[in-house]
């Protein structure tokens, strides 16, 4: 690869950084998730160009905007341990198939993806999702405690408006400054060993 080729490649990557950080600024602080705003039913768009979507491409094109946005399935339906444990939990394939053995999808593009879920179930091979949100090392984040204080609709505060994302991307840095700014604003503990041990 030539010198200029590297520069071009990095430029593209950085554009991606910029693009994915825009929704973060636009949506921070808005409580959401679990079905979007009241009164204005959300209709998930038909996606023709998946390349323009933020975030990594997943083995199955699972659409949070359809499930959480359009169908208003609460976040906790699938991530049910978030209110009781430090980990929100990734739903077992059984949770998917619970609905999708009946629901086959309305659009052909949906049907293709649901077929992948059914095949994974019959093959006993759960999909290998690409991880999007991961804390830096040496940090503990008890989900349950934050949900307890902020409520079960507070997911969007950190994860962004997932219920409008066709493909989930990370909107918050999850870095210490970002954590601490919220803790400072709310006048809650900023002690190191609350998170670092």
């Amino acid at each position: 690869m030539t010198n200029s080729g590297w520069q071009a490649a990095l430029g593209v990557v950085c554009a991606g950084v910029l693009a994915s950080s825009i929704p973060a600024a636009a949506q921070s602080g808005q409580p959401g998730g679990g079905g979007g705003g009241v009164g204005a039913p959300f209709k998930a768009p038909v996606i023709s160009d998946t390349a323009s979507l933020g975030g990594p491409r997943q083995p199955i094109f699972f659409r949070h905007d359809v499930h959480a946005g359009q169908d208003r399935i609460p976040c906790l339906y699938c991530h049910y341990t978030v209110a009781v444990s430090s980990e929100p939990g990734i739903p077992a394939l059984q949770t998917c198939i619970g609905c999708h053995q009946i629901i086959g999808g309305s659009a052909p593009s949906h049907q293709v993806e649901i077929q992948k879920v059914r095949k994974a179930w019959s093959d006993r091979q759960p999909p290998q999702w690409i991880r999007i949100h991961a804390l830096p090392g040496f940090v503990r984040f008890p989900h349950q405690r934050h949900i307890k204080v902020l409520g079960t609709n507070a997911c969007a505060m950190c994860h962004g408006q997932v219920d409008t994302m066709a493909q989930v991307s990370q909107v918050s840095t999850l870095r210490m400054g970002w954590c601490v700014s919220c803790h400072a604003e709310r006048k809650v503990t900023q002690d190191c060993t609350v998170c670092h041990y």
Partner: protein
Amino acid sequence: MSHGMNRRRFLKVLSVTGGGAAVLSGCGIGPEPTEKLIPYLIAPEDQIPGTPTWYSTTCRECAAGCGLHAKVREGRVIKLEGNPDSPINHGRLCARGQAGLQGLYNPDRIAGPLVRKAPGRLEETTWDSGVALLAQKVAEAKRKGIVFVTGHETGAFGELVDDWLKAVGGRHVTYEPFAFEALREGNRLAFGTSAVPFYDFASARYILSFGADFMETWLSPVGFQNGFSRAHGFEAGRDAAMAKFVSVAPRMSLTGMSADEWIAVAPGTEGVLALAMAHVIVSGRLARVPGEMGLAARLANNLAAYAPENVARTTGVGAHVVERLAREFAASGAGLAVAGGMATHYPNGAEIVAAVNVLNFVAGAVGKTVKFGPDLAVDAGSFRDAAALQADLAAGTVALLLVHGANPVYSLGGFAQALGKVAFTVSFSSYLDETASAADLVLPDLHPLEQWNDARPRTGVYALQQPVMQPVFPNTMHTGDVLLRASGKPGTFRDYLQGKWRVLHQRHGRGKSFEQWWMEAVQHGGIYDEVPTRTVRLSPSAIPPGLAATRRGDDRYPLTVFPHPALHDGRGANKPWLQELPDPVSKISWHGWVEVNPETAGKWQVASGDIVLLTSPYGAMRAPVWITPSVMPGVLAVPTGQGHTAYGRYARDRSFNAFQLLGDSPAAYGGREFLVSVTVAKTGDHRRLATAEGNAREQGEGIIEALPLAKARQLRAGQHPFEEKQIPDYAEAAREGWAEAQHEKASLGNYAGAHPRWAMAIDLAKCTGCSACVTACYAENNLATVGEELITRHREMSWMRIERYFTGGERGVPVGAVVTPMLCQQCGNAPCEPVCPVYAAYHTPDGLNGQVYNRCIGTRYCSNNCPYKVRYFNWFNYAEPGGEWESWPEPLQLLLNPDVTVREKGVMEKCTFCVQRIRAAQNQARLEDRAVHDGDIVPACAQSCPSEAIVFGDLNDPRSRVHALAEDPRGYHVLAGLNTKPGITYLAKVTAGPGAEA
């Protein structure tokens, strides 16, 4: 980086694009894009990610049968704790029990069945062919001699082995290197029953141990230690405040360290001493002799030869001492004398036990503290059987030998050779130990934490063992299943076990359906019944007519071989936690030693670490000398456990095998003699001992305070005899300024408002130095084991250590020992904090000396400034897979606690009172809209402590236990004069020794 792209140019490109670091971490935020999240296919009902699930099961690390709670996170067991429901261990667990995890995840476990195709080589095979081969060999060997050797089995597995042997025609030999033959025979001599009673230490008011190491390896160490600390712990206002403990032994063991008085007695004369005490009690009518009319007179007659003045020469114990001990024992009203361990491994071991039984009987202890009825199940296995087996093997009369849970090649000198005469040997071992290495077929069993089984350690206690996780090595199989398959029986071992429990259900079901009753039993770890005590009668003929003489050559020294408190008979040697754990008495790890009294060492002109050649009539070995006052002059002592030639990377080729000094022929009572006479020769070699000992003496530093019982009883609430003036006069003005600054600091930011102050109280009157807490800390906090070399350089990582100091030994003061757990004191005015240039060491609002690992840059200033030396530096990367100092080779890393950071090279680490447990309890309390209750938070050390010596809580809560204990008159702070204001209050040890009344 080809095509002309070198590192320098690459960095230049990055700086041009302006987002270097961001790009490297993948669009600025988050993990590498390749990290995968793989969900369950079907979520297990009883697992919540991020939250542990606890399962009840039973510990199988020794025969005691302690109840366990296994902490399972995401399908992996990461910690073992005692089951509070179990009447055996009352929720407590020893170091060996904790280390069971390292047997489960041992990197040297056998992953699948092995068969010997050519001499000297074991090759992998399949279960189908392995089981078929077993069945074929059984058919071939029928009526030609089949022997099944197992360890001590008290439950369904042992019954299955018996059933199976009945069907195929063979004999069952139970082999435990440390069995209790003398105890059984001594009880038969005295009481006509070979049952082993339950010793109720908790009810005793005076405890006499004749060699019994009841806190380390004897019968049921955790339960006994728990009972002992209830009796021996100081409690103001109780009838006698504390039960006195006298240890009679030639060597001070871990148990002996807790003694108020150590009577060093010539080896083999313990029984004579006991009978002399019985003589004093009977002739002086100090207690009412129970039993029928005329018994007392007959006893007095038979005891006549044992007047204290007659035995003084034999035992080396003065008549006045015997007289005093006997009076104290009888006057206590609830004495308990136990004989075991060293004292029962002599040729006259059974007579010694019988003599101690006589003492118990005449003092009225039998039925009160010695309880027949809830008998301990140690009635299987005798060295005589093992010796007979070895003779049969050598004679070639055994065609098929099966071995499970025993390693006779290691501990029996002639077994390896005899094994050569056996046509076919099958091992069911999980590890390639010496016996498995010599086997023709190895069918690896599941680890006890992976399998169904049960144990009946005590009459009335039915302890269940359930698999707490899927097998670590899926290609291993329950030996019960193997036997059922090989004999063509349907069903699994679990069905067999349930069949046995269906019978129990008929008796104990209390009207519940079997399924419900079974589920409840599994949940509680078994069923526990109260068994009434039964009376026994003393046979006066238990008293031998004359004094037993000790054997003693001129140039020979009596040498006692004792079980290592952690490695036991060698089975612990493949677990790095137990290897790294300093022996509670010697403080030596990773190696064996021979204990030599300073007087003897002076005669030989040797120093600690000098290697001597010990030669007994049966073998010879080289051992480094450890000079110690804890063994009497002229007597030598060596621990077992090391010197393996196989058994995995941690055990192999390490130190010496003390069993090689022992003979193979059983004593009259059927047990093995562990006392041999040896000659000693200097070799001129030297070895630096890997010891955690800094100084053998406390040097008056005030680290451990002790009070004589009489003084302790006079203490009243509000008195503080140990309080030091913490600030010298010249610093008074500075103190005022300091206090003001502190107050100001304490009202800012995180420090504003009310906070707990986490604190601990450690009762040294209860602490025995057993070191269970040390291993619990290793398990909970992902402490690295560093190995022998780094220990010699004092680079161990044990956040919690037990300091042991010898006392007395000069100017007529008897030798004793004091112990204290030493861990971060969580100083209120911590010297470590202000010297950290990066604020990695800092004070948390809740009173901890926090350590932020990702902030630490490794200056080690904090450690230099810590007066307690409780900060530990990562000199190497112990977590690096395949690294030189790797501490958790695959799959050992599976036991790491996911709630605790695994520290890297260059980082300082330390105890933070298990801050992860504090945060977990706070999170849970917040979830339940309540405050944290006293007792919600139990650090790992406090949880495991068999003596219940450690109490944790909030010092600022006036109703907390720790608050009350911090106000105790016995309370003191270590190095209080440094004005560190520690969060740990030690309660002074109380001694009831002979000088205690002074």
